[in-house]
């Protein structure tokens, strides 16, 4: 057992290629033909609602589930059927999965002991790993004697101490309170950059995904819906599901009335017409039905003096208002019954509306996005 084949390889580039991976449980399709390539050192988040298949994908990569078809390759070599013990992949579980009967030091040293390293070498590397996560003084504690955040760090140290080719994180911040979560997000990202580790992160928290990732892969019903940098996912969602799932959004349905130079005119309920940039990748003809997304924070209050002139304007009566702190959130309805969600910056200069008051909200054509035509 001492001459373990998974002895840490010094070259830990860690390019990951997922090709055509499918998996069904009975009648339930967990993964449907998933393709994803992750460059060495990249931080990619799989974002999806619960039941979207993201955890199944992680298990297939780690080797705890077998895919029905498709392949997983790390640095070009096929690991699809490789024993999970030989894959050299570090993983942080949702509940950390620390061994409750082992001290912090022995938890972190576990992967090294399994690789048959000498005691002195294990002690040295465990010490370094614990220093790195700032738990130097906790080596002899048991996991249950640590706080949630400290347990998280131990799990992180254990998953990286053996220089894995890949780091998998399965919703690791779910159990932490908000402040600690913000701190851990930054810390994980710092650690990941320092170690140059290719990282696949799983979360259902879209804010977390946008903050942490080089690229975000949105998943639903076992399929990857869109893969791209956070900015692209937020600004240019590929379909209504993503527009709705990532952040808050207004999705207006209407009919294309006219086509101009890079601009479409879309008629909404009640004779209202809005200007929307056309898309090269989405052919649209006059008369077709279309869906348009506008983020609530892109609206401006046209009743305030000095408001910029916008090409689009929607009038209505405030139905609900909420004070969020950084902004005021309103839901208002037009005479034709169109519901609009807006967030206006809050501050001493801003005007506050009460339910029933008239409001006029404007937005630039560039702040609207055509997301579906049929």
């Amino acid at each position, binding site marked *: *057992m001492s001459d373990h084949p998974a002895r840490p390889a010094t070259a830990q580039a860690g390019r990951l290629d997922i090709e055509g991976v499918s998996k069904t449980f009975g009648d339930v399709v967990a993964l449907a033909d998933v393709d994803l390539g992750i460059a060495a050192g990249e931080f990619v988040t799989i974002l999806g609602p619960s039941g979207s298949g993201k955890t199944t994908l992680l298990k297939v990569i780690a080797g705890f589930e077998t895919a029905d078809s498709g392949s997983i390759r790390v640095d070009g070599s096929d690991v699809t059927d490789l024993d999970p013990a030989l894959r050299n992949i570090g*993983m942080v579980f949702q509940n950390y999965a620390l*061994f409750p009967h082992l001290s912090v030091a022995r938890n972190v040293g*576990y992967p090294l002991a*399994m690789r048959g390293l000498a005691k002195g070498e294990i002690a040295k590397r465990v010490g370094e790993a614990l220093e790195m996560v700032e738990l130097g003084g906790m080596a002899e504690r048991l996991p249950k004697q640590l706080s949630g955040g400290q347990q998280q760090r131990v799990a992180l140290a254990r998953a990286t101490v*053996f220089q894995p080719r890949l780091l998998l994180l399965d919703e690791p911040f779910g159990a932490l309170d908000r402040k600690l979560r913000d701190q851990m997000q930054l810390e994980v990202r710092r650690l990941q950059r320092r170690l140059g580790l290719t990282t696949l992160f799983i979360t259902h928290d879209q804010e977390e995904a946008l903050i942490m990732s080089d690229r975000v892969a949105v998943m639903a019903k076992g399929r990857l819906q869109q893969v791209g940098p956070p900015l692209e996912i937020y600004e240019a969602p590929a379909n209504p599901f993503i527009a709705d799932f990532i952040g808050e959004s207004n999705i207006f349905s209407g009919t294309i009335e006219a086509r101009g130079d890079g601009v479409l005119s879309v008629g909404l309920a009640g004779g209202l017409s809005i200007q929307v940039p056309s898309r090269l990748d989405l052919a649209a003809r006059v008369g077709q039905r279309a869906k348009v997304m506008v983020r609530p924070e892109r609206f401006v209050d046209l009743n305030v003096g000095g408001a910029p002139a916008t090409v689009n304007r929607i009038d209505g009566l405030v139905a609900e208002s909420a004070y969020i702190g950084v902004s005021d959130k309103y839901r208002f309805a037009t005479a034709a019954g169109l519901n609009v969600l807006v967030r206006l910056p809050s501050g001493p200069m801003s005007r506050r509306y009460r339910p029933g008051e008239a409001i006029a909200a404007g937005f630039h054509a560039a702040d609207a996005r055509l997301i579906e035509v049929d």
Partner: protein
Amino acid sequence: MPLWSAASTPRLDAAAAAGRFRVEFGALTLTLPALLLLLGLFVLPLGRLFALSFAGGSLEWYAKALTGGLYTTILLRTFEIAAIVTLCCLVIGYPVAFLLATTTPAWRAIGFAFVMLPLWTSVLVRTYAWMVLLGRNGIINRLLIDSGLTEQPLAMLNSKMAVVLGMVHVMLPFMILPIYSAVTRIDPDLPKAARGLGASTLRVATSIYLPLTLRGIVAGVTLVFVVSLGFYITPALLGGGKVLMFAMVIEQQVREFLAWNFAGALSVILLAVTLLAFWLLNQGVARRLGD
């Protein structure tokens, strides 16, 4: 503020004390029937035996039991058989408990039915069933002779093997249940985490499952060993008088010789040795688990 708290604290304490008293009184009332039952059926007879064994203020019955070799030999044999039974139960029971804890709910229900079935059957019936199986003209000998594997029937009954077989059959559920419960308490992510960190299946068993089920193992071992020390019916019937266990000697003294004082001394010795074994097993575990 200080005035307010000074005035209210004693009142709060009094209320808390009253509450505590009520709780204790309620608990006592509820356990009273069980306490009375134990007192009448266990503590009193035991005290009587104890008194009998020291009759006349002498230790002559203890001297007789502990010298001369006969009774200490039987006591040692009783320990030996109990140890063999415990070991067999552990070796057979652990994998069964593990499978029950990790299989699908449907198989678990079926498996549990098979584990629990013996518990719903009288020990006497099960012991006679073994006699039917192992006897000179029993089913197993019949099969062996009819198939031409042996000429003469094998003498399986009335042996230590038969006694151990019968006792393991009776005691197995008491080993399986605590281990099963320990395995189900293990977070299913732990073995996965260990595998992902490079542990082979064998290493997962020795470094994760074994230490985390140690409490269950010790509970099962203690239960099986301690109960086995006092076995009577199974060794009496399957051993055919050739395999003497301590409880049988006690019964013999009372029934055949009406030697109540001596039987009392033997009982106290068995009880003391059993308690000692129980204490040692628990001490070992407490040290191992650090609490």
